[in-house]
């Protein structure tokens, strides 16, 4: 499994922005996940976030909420998601989700299981460095990166803490709000990325409201990478069709990656 540091280091040498893509585990059905991951990675995704579905996703907008619910309705379980990741080594996988499902059987055990399945790190939407002492320790022991989120509302003191606690990259939330496509201006995100850069050498990727090549191009002009979630989740739900839509998805990823090349 390629780890985050290696991937971002290589992109930095090539002066290329990272394309980070989010998919919900279990939507399309989990049996499709390996094929989806392969399609994304071979078409240009540098890092893939695999969303662990949760029944009460307070940081997510309607698209990812509905996708999580579909995944849960199909009976998607954490252990099965980890099993579906095993053997995939074309791009680093970061597990993204909420504290409760990850912590249900103990943080230490989850970290070991996730690392054992080949995951490179985690992003926990409802966990800030304030309450993450044990989680960071468990992740360090398991060899998982811990990506924390920085927000436009974060104070300088909080940004210090986020940068100090993050490994792999820092996730800059582009705006106040929940996940979902549609963005008007990138000034807030640009300012935030500048504030983060003043504090750390870690790569900074921008997500929330990044939905297509134009957004990716804009974001990669001031950040190390762009994260697309809801738009891809919609595309997969509508067009993947058990793999028949593979080429359409691949073409979309190639276009997004081209925009990240600056």
């Amino acid at each position, binding site marked *: 499994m390629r780890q985050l540091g290696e991937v971002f280091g290589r992109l930095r040498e090539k002066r290329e922005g990272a394309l980070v893509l989010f998919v919900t585990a279990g939507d399309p059905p989990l049996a499709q996940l390996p094929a989806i991951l392969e399609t994304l990675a071979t078409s240009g995704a540098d890092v893939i976030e695999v969303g662990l579905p*949760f*029944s*009460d*996703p*307070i*940081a*997510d*907008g309607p698209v990812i*909420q509905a996708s999580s*619910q579909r995944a*849960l309705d199909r009976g998607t*379980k*954490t252990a099965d998601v980890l099993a579906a990741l095993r053997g995939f080594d074309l791009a680093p996988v970061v597990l993204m989700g*909420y*504290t*409760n*499902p*990850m*912590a*249900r059987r*103990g*943080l*230490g*055990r989850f970290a070991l299981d996730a690392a054992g399945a080949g995951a490179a790190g985690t992003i926990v*939407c*409802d*966990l*800030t460095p*304030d*309450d*993450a*002492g*044990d*989680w960071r320790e468990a992740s360090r022991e398991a060899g998982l990166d811990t990506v*924390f*989120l*920085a*927000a*436009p*509302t*974060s*104070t300088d003191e*909080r940004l210090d803490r*986020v940068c100090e606690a993050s490994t792999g990259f820092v996730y800059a*939330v582009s705006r*106040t*709000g*929940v996940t979902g496509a549609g963005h008007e201006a990138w000034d807030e995100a640009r300012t935030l990325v500048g504030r983060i850069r003043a504090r750390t050498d870690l790569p900074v990727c921008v997500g929330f409201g990044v939905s297509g090549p134009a957004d990716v191009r804009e974001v990669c002009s001031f950040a190390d990478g762009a994260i697309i979630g809801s738009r891809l989740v919609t595309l997969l739900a509508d067009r993947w069709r058990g793999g028949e839509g593979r080429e359409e998805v691949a073409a979309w990823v190639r276009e997004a990656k081209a925009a990240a090349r600056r």
Partner: protein
Amino acid sequence: MAAVSPSLGRFGPYGGRYVPETLVPALDEFESSFRRAWADPGFQAEFEGLLRDYVGRPTPLTEARRISERTGLQVTVKREDLNHTGAHKINNALGQCLLAKRMGKSRIIAETGAGQHGVATATVCALLGLECEVYMGEEDCSRQELNVFRMRLLGARVIPVSSGTRTLKDALNEAMRDWVTNVRTTHYVIGTAAGPHPYPEIVREFQSVIGREARAQYLERHGRLPDVGIACVGGGSNAIGFFHAFLNDPMDLIGIEAGGLGIPSGHHAAPLTAGSPGVLHGSYSYMMQDEDGQVLPTHSVSAGLDYPGVGAEHSYLKDSGRVTYRSASDDEALRAFQEVAQLEGLIAAFESAHAFVPLFERGGLSPGARVLVNLSGRGDKDMERASTLLGLQS
């Protein structure tokens, strides 16, 4: 969940702040505003003045003579149903909206289950000239329709929530999402003693007037303290406000959760009785969840108790053994609802009716025990459902 780092705002291991980073600065601001205000005699005078002149506090204690005769207990009732808007919820709504004004936030959002917190918040917003939007599950909008009309009349916008189970938990999710989006202009008035730090502490402080009054009133009238205090527990705001003044007294404290169709059926809302610790809505506390950490659907006849989580301090009080938590089923609560109406002329909210159930249980409380029950709200809002469930049409 094995271990959680102890940090800010914990009751033992419970509580904390499990929220998106975007909200943390607002939670910090809320906490510091509260600490400044709470220490400010000007704020205290304004809060207490409105509790007295607008809400109608202190609420009385009523001796429940016919229930006492029937049960062989000595039962006294704290009358939170007599507050303006008909429940204890306004104590907290008033406190938080006054704080919001101090923080310069002109827009208020709230979630509501039974509608009592929504009505209380809409009322205070009308009083203070604040914009108000209330999230309410679609199912609750239909089973508590009267409260929807009241909120609209008071000038609030009621936003029906159609996601998930369409009840209180989903209204909370949607309010959190609104807050994360509009956090710079908006204060979120959480209606119960749950949620991320500092909500559990602040809501308790605003509600603790219930127990302080009741303790002083009981002592003055009876020259001693009761043997037992009972309150219903959903998220647990009336219960924590009622219990808090008695925690250091030699008294049994009992919290009654919603047993729904019975604990073995799985159709209930009793996380302390039958759940396990986990993270929901920003805090680590007992909750109803499956083996994979997904939140389980709940059931209760009372919309206000129909919630899979509970305030963090209750989890701590359960583990420490200071408070005993049990459940009462829908049927038991409905029987108590009728008994209390017919023996005392008190129409309790379905939620509050749960707190009366132990009085009528055989072999429950010791004969002659002095029992103080918190009647957290009145039942007018439940009359339509009651007429169907109890066949009152003819």
